[in-house]
């Protein structure tokens, strides 16, 4: 009898472990239903042609670049190459490419494809956004200007060996993981109308695109990661309205949904929905940027005063519903150069008034703030800070403009101040370069920042070969920005993705949470989609 009980116990244990394993073992099959939440349609399915984050959602399924983003280790890793070796001066990289990467038309990828793709991106007659990344390869600028046919810094050693020489000492992974630098098959692009039938190296093969509605893709059996992708089919459904996504998610019609602030509160409060929330601090800093050519903003005390005058924590808590992290300085917490010991500007209206009086504005002043309609970094935020500034005597006049006009205003310096969202990663040096005095306003120095000490720090950081030293210098530079306050530091974006219980393998990608590498995602049998 005892033996029987013991046997039963063992059997149940084994069964239990097996069941648990089954939960953790990726299931092969099923359909992944992702959503594209940023716009009402896709721009283009040609990854070279579009800078839009939403298009890259599809890009991650159909295409591949030389590197990809490793979320677990928070850095780029090789994707289309097996290994890389750097020259002693850190400028030349030799890649041993994969020999098992096949395009969806069956052809194997070789070094020629990489060379052709990067050359296409540098075509000076076209405005391909990836050019900003490929430009660091030696000779790329010549192609852009039309002075050369091919990028001289790219050399084919053999079919699967590629040598790349850069113009400055950077980690190429940060540049070539971008979707806009995807490797495409020349023969498919030259057929014309590539956007209608994209062919790439990604784990899923294009099936159909219904404009304004969705893209459907199927498993590519010859993908080079064995056993992957797990799912048979991938659908990316366009749903730009947060309320609509909310309904569809609750009706189990979609597997993932980006949450807006209102839904974030509701989902966190719901006992079931709260179990499926993925949060990540993305690399965007939202801030109000001052234009120092407008007299009050030339004075550091005024700029700091505004930071003291606004109860930023309350705005984040109440208006943004905690769907953001309080900004301390310019770089986000995911940056290695972020100073964890720094505290953000406290809410201190009295100090603000004093600083204003010291600067010569005891009765405050007026200024115009250009803003867009955006709910996270636009009009609602502006409306919220008006009363705070009013209490210290500053009259804020909002100027509502469309994003396109806002961008032009910022680049031309026609603003007194504007509020916006700025990309602040993953390469911290490149991010801080926006405050380098030699960087023009049209590039990204919208605050016309000019501080010799800051410049010195950045120069030194660029020279430093040792990563630790570089990060230390960048940290000092970042702290200097805090002190100089060229902006009102608002927040770093918290991206929130709601996911159904049957979908696994999602990555908390800080570069952009919707950019999921779908070969790692699998749906278990409880999914209603077949």
């Amino acid at each position: 009898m005892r033996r029987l009980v013991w046997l039963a116990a063992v059997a149940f244990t084994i069964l239990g472990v097996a069941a648990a394993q089954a939960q953790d073992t990726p299931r092969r099959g099923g359909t992944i239903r992702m959503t594209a939440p940023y716009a009402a349609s896709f721009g283009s399915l040609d990854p070279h042609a579009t800078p839009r984050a939403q298009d890259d959602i599809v890009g991650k399924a159909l295409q591949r670049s030389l590197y990809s983003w490793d979320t677990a280790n928070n850095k780029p890793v090789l994707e289309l190459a097996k290994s890389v070796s750097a020259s002693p001066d850190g400028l030349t990289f030799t890649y041993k490419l994969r020999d098992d990467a096949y395009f969806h038309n069956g052809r194997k990828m070789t070094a020629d494809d990489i060379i052709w793709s990067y050359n296409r991106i540098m075509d000076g007659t076209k405005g391909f956004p990836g050019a900003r990344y490929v430009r660091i390869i030696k000779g790329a600028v010549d192609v852009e200007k039309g002075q050369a046919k091919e990028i001289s810094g790219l050399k084919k050693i053999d079919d699967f060996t590629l040598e790349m020489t850069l113009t400055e000492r950077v980690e190429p992974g940060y540049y070539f993981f971008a979707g806009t630098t995807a490797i495409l098959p020349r023969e498919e692009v030259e057929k014309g109308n590539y956007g209608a039938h994209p062919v790439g190296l990604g784990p899923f093969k294009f099936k159909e695109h219904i404009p304004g509605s969705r893209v459907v893709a199927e498993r590519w059996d010859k993908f080079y990661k064995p056993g992957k992708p797990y799912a048979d089919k991938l659908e990316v459904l366009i749903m730009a309205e947060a309320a609509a996504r909310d309904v569809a998610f609750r009706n189990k019609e979609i597997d993932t949904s980006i949450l807006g602030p209102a839904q974030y509160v509701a989902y966190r409060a719901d006992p079931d929905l709260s179990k499926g929330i993925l949060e990540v601090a993305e690399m965007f800093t939202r801030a109000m940027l001052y234009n120092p050519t407008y007299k009050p903003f030339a004075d550091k005390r005024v700029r700091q005063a505004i930071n003291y005058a606004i109860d930023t924590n309350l705005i984040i808590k109440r208006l943004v519903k905690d769907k953001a992290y309080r900004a301390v300085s310019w770089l986000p917490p995911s940056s290695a150069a972020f100073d964890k010991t720094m505290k953000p500007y406290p809410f201190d209206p009295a100090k603000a008034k004093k600083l204003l009086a010291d600067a010569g504005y005891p009765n405050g002043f007026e200024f115009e703030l250009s803003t867009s309609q955006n709910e996270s970094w636009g009009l609602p935020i502006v409306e919220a800070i008006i009363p705070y500034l009013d209490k210290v005597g500053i009259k804020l006049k909002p100027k509502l403009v469309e994003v396109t006009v806002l961008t032009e205003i910022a680049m031309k310096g026609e603003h007194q101040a504007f509020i916006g969202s700025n990309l602040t990663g993953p390469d911290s040096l490149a991010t801080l370069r926006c405050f380098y005095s030699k960087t023009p306003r049209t590039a990204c120095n919208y605050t016309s920042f000019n501080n010799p000490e800051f410049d010195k720090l950045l120069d030194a950081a660029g020279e430093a070969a040792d990563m630790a030293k570089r990060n230390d210098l960048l940290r000092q530079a970042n702290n200097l920005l805090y002190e100089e306050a060229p902006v009102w530091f608002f927040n770093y974006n918290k991206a929130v993705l709601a996911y159904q219980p049957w979908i696994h393998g999602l990555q908390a990608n800080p570069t952009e949470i919707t950019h999921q590498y779908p070969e790692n995602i699998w749906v278990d049998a409880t999914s209603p989609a077949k």
Partner: protein
Amino acid sequence: MSQSTRASVTADVAVRRRFRLKGGLSLWIGGALVALAIGVAIAAPLIALTDPVMGANLMNAEIPPGLEFPFGTDAQGRDIYSRIVYGSRISLTVGVVSQIVNSLIGVSLGLSAGYWGGLWDDLVSGLTNLMLAIPSLIFALAIMAILGPGLLSLVIALGLTNWSYSCRLARAQVLSLKSQGYVQAARILGYGDLRIMFTQLLPNILGPLIVIATLGMGGAILAEAALSFLGLGIRPPFPSWGSMLSEARDQITTAPWLSVFPGLAIFFTVLGLNLLGDGLRDILDPQATHRA
């Protein structure tokens, strides 16, 4: 008169009397609603509970309707009732001023086209047809995009889009009145063209014009809501019913009162204007029974 004829005539008279009663009812109800809206707009500072812009308190964000805040609060913690009260000023201003612009453009073009005829008439008619063919919302959207958001731009944009109706009215009236006795007499007496247009022709079209303008005001208020929804409305942070509606869109599942009250405000005001216009039409423009 035979029995049946007398009966049918009586029946007809009875029907017509009921018409007039209906017309009267529209006039009164419509008039009351519009008067209410105007009253609210004028008395806004007195009857509002808080300042619509500065009265924001983030601690009070998104409270449902209750004792302290009769219509609830919005995401910024502002009292919705007060914002609706102040918002009436914007909506009514948009309605009235845009219709004034409309009428000015339409009447001057229509009067002159009908009066002088010839090439000018052809030009104006062509232009009118053109404006009718272009969807008015799109045209207004384009003008708003050029001028940038704001009350002035809104009024200009809406004023420029719907003048064709008053234009056609003016022109038609002029054409039918041109040959009338008193107009001829005025000409013989040496009155200038402009004087004739102003003193003789204009008063005749005032009635129908007021009807068109009243109905147009309702349309303008609805257009303001649509344009705010599309992203090109009033200059913030002043409250307009349309922008309040548009801001509430994402919160429909979590805070429906944000959309209900501005929507009702728009509805009752426009309803009032429509009823008023209808009622006025029965008085001022009795021939227009079938111009719905």
